[in-house]
């Protein structure tokens, strides 16, 4: 399988008054046209990994890597202008919270159309029909009405579907979904993930799904990286997550309450055991 993304020894550093803080510490992985999950707690560096692929880490933060290659393009050598042509069109990112990520003073239709027009010139009629078709493919029942609404007029689940529509309309090769459903209800969560899953499969895209929810990641991905304090501590097939070996992964799995919970107390992570190597 041809590699879509190759990362070797990726490091992200932020300067602090007490010296440099390395939040991603030398991670390496490759991605084909498959679904990769990155899990870990807050502060484990999983979002920073996603952002560094898109070169979204601003000074004074620094990104270094021995290799950061997307489809033959060395992302570290791209100028800001060249990166803008890649962002959205080739790699796009679904953010966590639709409330803060959509433009409040533009209608939903305009925003989705803008995502498309930024990257290609198209006649207005075609833009409009593609925008409506995209809204329909994220299962919005009445796309013409919804296109005229503003973000505050739709629910969280619908807002997230709008964002997915916006990210997928330029037909990128790689989608990075950073906690795409953390702000949503369980019932809506499943719907949104099914939509992402279906579109990713149909268009043969690569997906990086960043989340702290192990169960969710294991049911929607092929492969999983578990991150802790900026390092990948475990890599496994999604189906084998429950057989994970690293104490950190085992600790995370054990701390999730179950539907038929019988334990009187949930085990919590003993961070002293492996944090600070």
């Amino acid at each position, binding site marked *: 399988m041809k590699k879509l993304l190759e990362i070797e020894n990726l490091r992200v550093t932020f300067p602090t008054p007490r010296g440099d803080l390395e939040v991603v510490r030398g991670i390496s992985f490759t991605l084909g046209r498959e679904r990769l999950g990155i899990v870990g707690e807050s502060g484990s560096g999983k979002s920073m990994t996603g952002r560094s692929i898109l070169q979204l880490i601003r000074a004074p933060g620094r990104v270094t890597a021995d290799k950061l290659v997307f489809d033959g393009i060395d992302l570290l050598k791209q100028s800001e202008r060249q990166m803008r042509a890649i962002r959205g069109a080739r790699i796009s990112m679904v953010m966590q919270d639709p409330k803060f990520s959509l433009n409040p003073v533009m209608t939903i239709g305009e925003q989705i159309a803008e995502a498309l027009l930024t990257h290609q010139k198209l006649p207005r009629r075609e833009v409009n029909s593609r925008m409506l078709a995209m809204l329909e493919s994220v299962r919005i029942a009445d796309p013409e009405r919804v296109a005229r609404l503003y973000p505050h007029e739709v629910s969280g689940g619908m807002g997230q579907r709008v964002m997915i529509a916006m990210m997928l309309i330029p037909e990128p090769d790689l989608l990075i979904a950073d906690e795409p459903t953390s702000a949503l209800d*369980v*019932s809506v969560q499943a719907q949104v993930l099914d939509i992402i899953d279906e579109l990713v499969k149909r268009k043969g895209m690569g997906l990086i799904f960043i989340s702290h929810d192990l169960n969710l990641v294991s*049911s929607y991905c092929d492969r999983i990286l578990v991150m802790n304090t900026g390092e990948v501590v475990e890599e496994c097939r999604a189906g084998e997550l429950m057989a994970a070996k690293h104490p950190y992964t085992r600790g995370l799995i054990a701390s*999730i309450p*179950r*539907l038929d919970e019988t334990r*009187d107390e949930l085990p919590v992570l003993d961070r002293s055991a492996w944090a600070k190597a």
Partner: protein
Amino acid sequence: MTALSLKNLDISYGDVQITHDVNLDIADGESFALVGESGSGKSTVLKAIAGLAPEWTGEITVLGSPRGHGIDRAFSRQCQMVFQDPYGSLHPRKTVDATLGEALTIHGIGDRSARIEEVMTSVGLDRKFRFRFPHQLSGGQRQRVAIARALMLKPKVLLLDEPTSALDVSVQAEVLNLLKRLRREQNLTFLMVTHNLAVVSFLCDRLAVMRQGRIVEVADVADLKRGDLKDPYSRELMQISAAHAT
């Protein structure tokens, strides 16, 4: 004895009626969950009890005394609320000490320092956090402060609005253990709103499923564990949760 009883509770925001005819009886020392999807009115019920949604008709009774529509100090001492988002519910320019001490000042209670330290110890916060601001704390520590704030007046009933949904699974486990321990030690009654059925299974005795402002089913958690809910909508919720839990 019933700790909390709701009779024919209809809550409105302006012209829109949010809940219809909600009836609940929660026993003293019980842990009760309200579950349902967003927009089902479950958080609104908590807000009405706490006095944050004053447009209601019906009856709200806490520990035998009915609640009025206005601010009620005696009520505040009996019943307190913990909010969903610890990043939003603490005042960013008040230290932990000021946040915890405010309730004591309002109610004219002395012995401030000792009471603050006592509550901080009971929620597992080290003394060194006492004069820090919320932005200097992690999400789990902030939620501990929010719980400590609710416990300052030694209430009997705690209203919990999705207390762990903004937290990571590992931190969620810590906060859930804390809530369970506090309930045992201080003999608290919980009314918790959540959409996570696994959390209900861990922490609660009974649950009510809400949909479109109505309670469609009240069941024992034992029924939930057996997968024995009756209403079709409750079953649907249960199946979605089961599909994601491995």
